[in-house]
């Protein structure tokens, strides 16, 4: 296929690194790793990491997620057991991300938002043959127990829990964006400059590159969107830690409606906080109430969500920047959920072949939503 015109911006160093690594992996065959084969090297790794003998048991594949291979296990240390989660890179994933970035950002936001504590990271795959990360396993559920949804999109939370969930959801987002990232260890991240278009440009360059490398056939709407985005890159007034996938389905909550942990940090980066706001208000994550009202992320009306964020964060949301990031986010969704999934489903280098095919089918709606955001669909819905 024809490569897109080069942007004037590059992608971040570590994003480039993991995309290159994926290119190498594509030349090799992929074999699903049985959990039992991981126990011994995992135990040896964590013993080295913690500096004392440990015992790993009850290692099993974890359900949930559409990206990395996740395993629950129990770690015995000094006679005490801890419930942990191993995240291991598959052959290919709906998003190609860097475990060191995930590790560093989780450490950086500790205290600012509820997150699992991370224990160890192996960004080069020296211990388990593929890059991996070990973190605390947090209890809670990502959606109501009845009516589970494959993608976590469009979750209708229990009505009686929405108020507390919305409070915690907004507080955590404000907390993440307020982190003094300059004082944290974030060496795996490049830092876009405030007052420039670098934040938006780097984001576009990332997903344009993914499209160029993953598309098995051209998708005109996605190409149109890239051209629109390139022509409308905004500057960033402030630079913050951006979660990159902040929405319903990516947090765990308890029976009292309190958020126990914000999950899925692999797309986090330093950038414009409008990006997260444009993700939270994305129509694809909204739920229609019986009254006909739309709830952003199934929690609050769009305008109430934005107004409450503004009050809590203490800065004004720029509507033009928000519109850019709403379109950018639809573009990013269309690229990974519509483009990458098809390549993976055909290549079979994943533990989630059926999910990739199904998400690809579902993502035709994402492409239609991208056309709507670009006002090119003639108002169809």
């Amino acid at each position, binding site marked *: 296929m024809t490569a897109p015109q080069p942007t004037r911006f590059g992608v971040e160093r570590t994003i480039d690194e993991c995309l290159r690594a994926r290119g190498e992996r594509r030349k090799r065959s992929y074999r699903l790793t049985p959990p039992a084969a991981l126990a011994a090297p995992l135990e040896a790794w964590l013993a080295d990491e913690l500096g004392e003998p440990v015992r790993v048991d009850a290692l099993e594949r974890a359900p949930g997620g559409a990206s990395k291979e996740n395993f629950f296990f129990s770690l015995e240390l000094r006679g005490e057991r801890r419930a942990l989660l191993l995240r291991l890179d598959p052959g290919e994933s709906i998003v190609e991300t860097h475990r060191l970035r995930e590790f560093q950002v989780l450490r950086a936001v500790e205290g600012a938002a509820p997150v699992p504590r991370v224990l160890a990271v192996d960004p080069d795959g020296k211990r388990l043959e593929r890059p991996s990360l070990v973190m605390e396993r947090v209890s809670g559920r990502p959606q109501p127990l009845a009516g589970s949804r*494959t993608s976590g999109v469009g979750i209708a939370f229990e009505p009686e829990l929405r108020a507390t969930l919305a409070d915690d959801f907004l507080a955590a987002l404000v907390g993440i964006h307020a982190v003094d990232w300059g004082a944290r260890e974030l060496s795996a991240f490049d830092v876009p400059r405030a007052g420039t278009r670098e934040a938006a440009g780097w984001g576009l360059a990332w997903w344009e590159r993914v499209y160029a490398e993953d598309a098995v*056939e051209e998708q005109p709407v996605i190409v149109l969107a890239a051209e629109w985005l390139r022509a409308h890159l905004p500057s960033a007034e402030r630079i913050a830690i951006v979660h990159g996938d902040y929405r319903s389905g990516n947090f765990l909550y308890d029976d009292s409606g309190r958020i126990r942990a914000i999950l899925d940090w692999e797309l986090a980066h330093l950038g414009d906080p409008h990006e997260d706001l444009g993700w939270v208000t994305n129509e694809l994550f909204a739920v229609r109430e019986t009254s006909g009202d739309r709830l952003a992320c199934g929690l609050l009306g769009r305008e109430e969500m934005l107004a409450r964020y503004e009050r809590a964060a203490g800065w004004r949301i720029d509507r033009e920047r928000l519109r850019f990031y709403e379109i950018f986010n639809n573009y990013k969704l269309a690229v990974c959920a519509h483009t990458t999934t098809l390549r993976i489903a055909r290549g079979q280098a994943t533990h989630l072949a059926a999910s990739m095919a199904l998400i690809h089918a579902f993502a*035709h709606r994402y492409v239609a939503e991208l056309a709507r955001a670009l006002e090119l*669909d003639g108002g169809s819905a």
Partner: protein
Amino acid sequence: MTPEPRDLLRGARATLAEVVLPALSDPFAIEQAKTVVRVLVHLDAVIDDAYALEWEEARDLAALLDEPASTLANAPASYRALRDANVERKRRVAERIRAASAAGAAPDAALADYVRRQSQRDRRWTSPKPGIDPAGGVA
């Protein structure tokens, strides 16, 4: 010819949902088996529409690319041939979009019309029948 593809799909789905799934105990395997059931549900719902949607797209793409009317005078015999031809047409449309953008031109009315009609097809493909949602749960 029989069995129709839907007969095969429904048989596979019933066995998976009623025999295999209840016998599984591994949570990951259960989740993946449910996903396979959802794939089969979706395929069952769209399989009769796949050719028609591809044919509509071919017609719209051909018009957008100013192909001679004779190009589509006779529908290709197979779904595969139709798909392959549309992949090539979309490549040419993408080239045209990039060239227009490089020249500073906005999307023209014909392109906008194609996108509008394709968006309708995308939505039909995703939710082909009332009550069917490929992201939804398995009964």
